């Protein structure tokens, strides 16, 4: 065995202190993370460049199966619908569709994407507060479950259905107090003040629409399963009420999403890995509440789940490289990376776990991690304990699979490629690196502006 040369590390002088006040001492994030699903970070960057998003197909499928198992062993009728806004790269969507997920979309654009991916119309759930007439018409014709968000939409859907002479299947979105703050009451009809019943009565009495489901989505990054238990029992209560009052069997209860991933929210005392509830805990809360609500055993509603973040977040990695190190005026160390908040949008609310991708000694230092943008907001981590990194060193940002590949900005620089490591450990490009053409493709330059002399 050839002896390995020790890496050069710059010397550092450190004041002896006890670290940030924390019962676990200073956070240690310095185990090097060199391989993703058996593929080395180094080879990925050398082949596809830096920065680079990497997704693990294996992890996505495992997570899905974990969630699926948690619910299906507790409830007889379960259906997942992939939340497109979380990550709508077609390859990702199709992994979920292969696993059996329907599609859940919140815009006409996403709806078109789901259709293009080949999802049958009646398996695309159309949510969201903004649906145009054309989109509503298309959804009705495709028999897609329409989830109505507000009264104006209810009226418009009724009018369009009357014009089309089709009786579409609809659901209403319900918001409610589940004991958490902030209460999400801007979407849907409120349960406690009777708006939900008002909408239900309007739908049933108009007789133009068929009320088949109830939908809620109580929040995002929920760390408390008990809130779902409250929501599920309120939803069941509504469904049973509809049966008693109107003799209509609600076919499904859609509990939306919002399950926390294992990320750490900014300001959280403990790490997300330790605090985020498991799928089993969410499933236990939801299924028990519905089973105990009093439905007849043969008329249990279908339980739909639109989990996005918790299914895909952990499958995503962002690989990047150090551009430079510098010392700030107050003496703090700063590291400038080749990715910033334009690419890693979720850096605004998570303290992402960042690990070096190569071996190093045990010395660490608190560092501010900046992105490459020429903008003051571009801070990836305000403070982060890392070993001394030098220019060209690689790092891995963890748990970035959700929302980054949909909320990223083409701002100042172009967006990086996305790689999927398939189940055989083979990296495949699923979204190419943007080029100047991809941005200018949609631009139109008026004739009078074509030429100039400087």
């Amino acid at each position, binding site marked *: 065995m050839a002896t390995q040369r020790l890496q050069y590390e710059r010397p550092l002088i450190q004041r002896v202190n006890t670290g940030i006040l924390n019962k676990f001492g200073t956070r240690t994030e310095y185990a090097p993370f060199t391989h993703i699903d058996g593929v080395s970070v180094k080879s990925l960057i050398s082949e596809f460049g830096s920065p680079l998003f990497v997704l693990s197909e294996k992890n996505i*499928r*495992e997570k899905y*199966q*974990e969630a699926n*198992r948690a619910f*299906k*062993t*507790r*409830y*007889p*009728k379960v*259906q997942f619908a992939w939340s497109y806004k979380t990550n709508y790269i077609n390859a990702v969507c199709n992994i979920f569709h292969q696993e059996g997920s329907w599609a859940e979309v919140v815009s006409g654009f996403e709806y078109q994407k789901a259709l293009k991916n080949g999802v049958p119309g*009646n398996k695309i759930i159309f949510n969201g507060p903004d649906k145009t007439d054309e989109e509503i018409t298309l959804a009705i014709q495709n028999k897609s479950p329409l989830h109505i968000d507000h009264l104006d939409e209810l009226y418009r859907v009724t009018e369009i259905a009357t014009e089309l002479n089709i009786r579409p299947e609809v659901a209403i979105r319900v918001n409610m107090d589940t004991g958490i703050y902030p209460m999400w009451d801007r979407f849907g009809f409120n349960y406690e003040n009777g708006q939900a019943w008002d909408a239900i009565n309007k739908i049933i009495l108009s007789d133009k629409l068929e009320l*088949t489901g109830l939908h809620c989505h109580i929040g995002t990054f929920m760390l408390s399963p008990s809130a779902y238990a409250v929501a599920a029992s309120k939803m069941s209560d509504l469904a049973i009420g509809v049966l008693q009052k109107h003799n209509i069997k609600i*076919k*499904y209860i859609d509990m939306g999403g919002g399950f926390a991933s294992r990320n750490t929210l900014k300001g959280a005392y403990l790490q997300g890995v330790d605090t985020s509830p*498991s799928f*089993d805990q969410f499933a*236990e809360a939801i299924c028990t509440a519905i*089973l105990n609500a009093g439905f007849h*055993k*043969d008329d249990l509603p*279908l339980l739909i789940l639109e989990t996005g973040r918790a299914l895909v977040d952990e499958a995503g990695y962002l690989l990047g490289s150090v551009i430079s190190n510098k010392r700030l005026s107050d003496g703090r160390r700063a590291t400038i990376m080749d990715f910033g908040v334009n690419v890693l949008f979720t850096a605004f609310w998570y303290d992402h776990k960042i690990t070096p991708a190569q071996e190093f000694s045990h010395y660490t230092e608190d560092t501010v991690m900046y992105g490459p943008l020429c903008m003051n907001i571009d801070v990836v981590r305000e403070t982060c304990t890392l070993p001394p990194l030098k220019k060209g060193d690689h790092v891995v940002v963890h748990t970035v699979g959700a929302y980054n590949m949909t909320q990223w900005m083409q701002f100042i620089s172009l967006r990086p490629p996305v790689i999927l490591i398939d189940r055989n450990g083979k990296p495949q490009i699923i979204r190419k690196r943007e080029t100047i053409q991809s941005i200018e493709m949609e631009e139109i330059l008026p004739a009078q502006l074509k030429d100039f002399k400087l």
Partner: protein
Amino acid sequence: MSAQLTYRFRLLADFLLNSYSQLFFSDNRCFAWLLLLSSFVDPWSGLCGLIALLVAFLGAWGLKLPESPIRKGVYGYNALLTGLVMGIYFENGPEFWMMLFLGAFFTFLISVWLTSLLFKANLPLLGLPFLAGIWTILLSVRSFDALTLNERGLFMLNEVYRLGGNNLLQFYEFIQYPPIPDFWIVFLKSLGAIFFQYNVLSGIFIAAGILIYSRIAFSLSLLGFTTGYYFYQFIGGGTAELYYSFVGFNFILASISLGGFFVVPSFRSYGLVVILTPVMAMLVSALNYLFKDLQIPLYSLPFNFLILLMIYVLRLNFTGKGIQLVQQQAFQPEKNLYRHLNEQTRFAHHVAISLHPPFWGEWVVSQDDHGKITHLGEWRHAWDFVVKDDKALTYKPPGTQLTDYYAYNLPVLSPAAGTVVEIMDGVEDNPVGGVELQKNWGNTVVLWHGNLLYSKLSHLKTGSIPLKVGQTVQKGDTLGVCGNSGRSPEPHIHFQVQATPYIGSRTIQYPLAYYLEKKNKEWTFHSFGYPKEGSTIRSINTSRLLQQAFNWPIGKVWLWEFKDNKGHASMYRWEVLCDEWGNRYLWCPRTKSAAWFNLNDSCFWFYHFSGDKNSLLYHFYRATYKVPFSVEKEIQFVEEFPLHLICNNLTRYVQDFLSPFGLFMKADYGYLPSKTDDPHHPTKITLQTQTTGRLFNKLFYKSNYHIEVGTKGIYRISISELNGEAVCIED
């Protein structure tokens, strides 16, 4: 009035013809006519047989006996035999007519009595009443001088010469002694002797009849006779006895009935024939000595005795293996065999009360029937279930807490409707790896499902059982949640079936119902089965739409219109009927076809068809031979048809000859994944099924069916074989 007359005439016709075919255990009409014809080779004797039958019919009808045995000819065939024999023995005259009437009537009475007497012992009637009748007559006429013996047979050659001169005589000689080997002459004469027509011509008629009736019966008759013939030669008994007495037919009848009629034909039954024929020969010789002094012939006494003896012995085989008696008589060895084989593959594990997997979702069998860890001795029939992830772990690492285990806290469900008969609760859950050997079953629920059927679910979480003893539960009700109490080192469900209501009762073998089993990533559907250790199983999700579409109330009338692609249309009307035993069937009066069906909460199946194989009902039988009430795409399976109901060609007849030794032809029902508009709340389902025929495993026949089911039930069936589709116009 005329309707009633027609009805009675029909009853009489059925009675007459069935009485003839009953002689050979058949209900084949064609065969019946051949037998009738062959009995008239001696017209006088044939006529006497027919008259004796009329006497029996009048007797049965006049005494208002049950109609079903009359129609089947059960009360008739013994009287027929008595008549035939009397016609041969006695000279015409008023005294003879008197005696014929008395003899036939007496035989008939004995038939009625013995039928019900033997029915209770589960034994067949055979020819015992005939023996009683004919012996009584033969013994009694010794003191009745007026009755004279028939002398026709004695001076046969003279008579023939007188009638037709030398030519006819030569012809007669040719018929009686055709230039064929002795063996065949004796064989054919023995066949004729069954009808007391000791000549080759009758033998040929009967041989042809047997061949048409059943290839197995034909080969058996040859086998039995050959064995007897060569046994006589071997033992030095001389074949003279076979030549000049009626004993040869005993071998033939015994071999048909033991080789294929009362016993399911197989190489074993053929072996039985080879072994029993010498026994029969021995019996014949012994009885001959006894009866010589009485001066009455043996007739079929050896046959009757030996058959009853063997059936009695074989009844005591309860294992379902080895030589099998026919359970439900189909009146043809081939049908008996094909039905038996079909029932063995289709219904071997079938039980009336379905016990479903006691959980939701996918679970893995961690210990099966006869498991090596704890499913031992009297408790060997049981299953342990755990939940595993795709890495085959039962827990999320590190697995040191009960809550790390996927199975822990999951609902445990009632496998079927039942009553809670015993509950054990309050046993603390063990830490991971610990076991409690005192209260080894842990927290347990015992349910009673009717009859002697109890199920027991153990190792539940302490305090999780929401039930009281005496409470009734429905299938799928929660009995508690999975825990780790009792002899359980990690959370799992223990499920066993027992015949007594106690915790700790010994177990019985009982299958699990309607589940999907995953092996090597492939799902297979099982109606009833015993999942093995390591396999993943889950219940099927039943669809109410299918349940409703196949739940036909008795009395339902269906109107179907069939149209082929050339525009020919025909109408069929079906009724749902139920017989006195509670068997349900679809009846098509136009084609006189019946398709017998059964169903439960999870599945519908046809189990028999009789009637016209060109009818729409026949295709419906094939199209929906078995339909599980689920639209899951994992459900697809192949199930065998009884061969005789699908294949009816010359190759099948060749197969018939070889069928006791193996099948090279197969007919299968294929259930392909169904299509639906919405897997959770379907409003339209298209079932796809097919019938395939295989010859040496090569496909030689295939026809497809599409059955469309909507909210109002089954409404369209397209039939590829007929190039058309049937539409339900009214129900």
